[in-house]
């Protein structure tokens, strides 16, 4: 049975390939087709069909290696998973319909063929999905690490004055990390005033504000003052509209004003040297 299907595909390879490309292009959303050039699309399609065929013959190791290569290539190209699984499905129906047309599959043996098709298609799509998801998991964990590395440095600018610029979206995990860095750094640098600069934070919602307020309170407990700087107009608007109360700590619109205020708090002042031009 297996042999019949395999031979049939081998014999009609070009026809199946052309039909597959036509039908896939038709069904796929424009996004994918536009994403890759025609040449790459054809080459990858051919590779895809070759891969499916190699499922029938050759050792299982060879197949697995090819499959991994292929899946990784597809991930790099940015093809959506649905596109690939749909492609597999399309391939199946093309072969099935063609074999029906050539009367290899007849009502009498139809059921057996359906079962046979399913027997080799299922592990294949499982394998593709699993390679896809493990590739994604790896990417996600790498990105998570990268995000943690860029998580909020603490910069001492003057004796007793430290700045922490926040960049990017803040979620609960990151907020906790930031709070730890902030407090440990403040103690290490013996900071009297800590400025949190939120110029680079795109959205300040209730949750982000809550974390910032918690951080400010914790800073007060270790014996330093916390100041929030870099509040853009739209952020001031959201804060007030959401009814978030930031009255308990000093806020300034930019880092410069914040540092001036911090200098004042620590009894320092920047003066121009006399006679300097």
């Amino acid at each position, binding site marked *: 049975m297996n042999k019949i299907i395999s031979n049939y595909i081998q014999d009609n390879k070009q026809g199946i390939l052309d039909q597959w490309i036509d039908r896939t292009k038709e069904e796929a959303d424009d996004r994918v087709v536009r994403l890759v050039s025609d040449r790459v699309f054809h080459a990858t399609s051919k590779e895809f069909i070759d891969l499916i065929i190699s499922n029938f013959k050759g050792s299982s190791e060879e197949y697995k290696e090819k499959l991994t290569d292929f899946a990784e290539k597809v991930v790099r190209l940015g093809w959506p998973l649905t596109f690939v699984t749909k492609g597999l499905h399309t391939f199946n129906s093309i072969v099935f319909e063609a074999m029906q047309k050539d009367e290899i599959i007849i009502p009498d043996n139809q059921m057996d063929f359906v079962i046979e098709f399913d027997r080799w298609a299922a592990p294949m799509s499982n394998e593709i999905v699993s390679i896809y998801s493990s590739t994604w998991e790896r990417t996600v964990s790498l990105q998570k690490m990268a995000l943690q590395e860029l998580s909020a440095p603490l910069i001492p600018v003057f004796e007793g004055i430290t700045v922490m610029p926040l960049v990017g979206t803040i979620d609960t995990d990151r907020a906790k990390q930031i709070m*730890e860095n902030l*407090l440990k750094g403040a*103690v290490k640098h013996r900071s*009297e005033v800590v400025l949190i600069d939120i110029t680079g934070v795109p959205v300040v919602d209730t949750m982000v504000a809550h974390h910032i307020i918690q951080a400010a*309170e*914790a800073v007060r*407990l*270790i*014996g330093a003052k916390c100041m929030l700087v870099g509040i853009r107009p739209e952020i001031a608007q959201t804060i007030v509209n959401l009814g978030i109360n930031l009255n308990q700590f000093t806020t300034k619109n930019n880092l410069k004003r914040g540092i001036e205020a911090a200098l004042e708090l620590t009894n320092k002042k920047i003066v121009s040297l006399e006679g300097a031009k």
Partner: protein
Amino acid sequence: MRIPILKLDDCLLVSIQWELDDQTALQFQEDLLQKIHETSSNGVVIDLTSIDFIDSFIAKVLGDVISMSKLMGAIVVLTGIQPAVAITLIELGIGLDDVLTALDLEKGLEKLQQELGE
């Protein structure tokens, strides 16, 4: 074991060196108030550098002793609260809102002089 309370000019100095259990904390509350009464000190610095955790009970005892001292005319400054302690307190929802704090003993004494001077 009792927590030693030292007198320095018109201030009292307390350094808590080991984990507080309930009895020690309550005993400390009593001792400190007694000492304030005896010495009529007007400032207290409690250093918590060696303390690596504070639960709601100990926080309450500390908060209470600060309010009580205030009633007796002594200002209390807490110093050296560790980052881990500060974070757990805030997450527990304990803000110790009206409490004065400073980074370390030195800064704490400075702060006390400032507050008393005003």
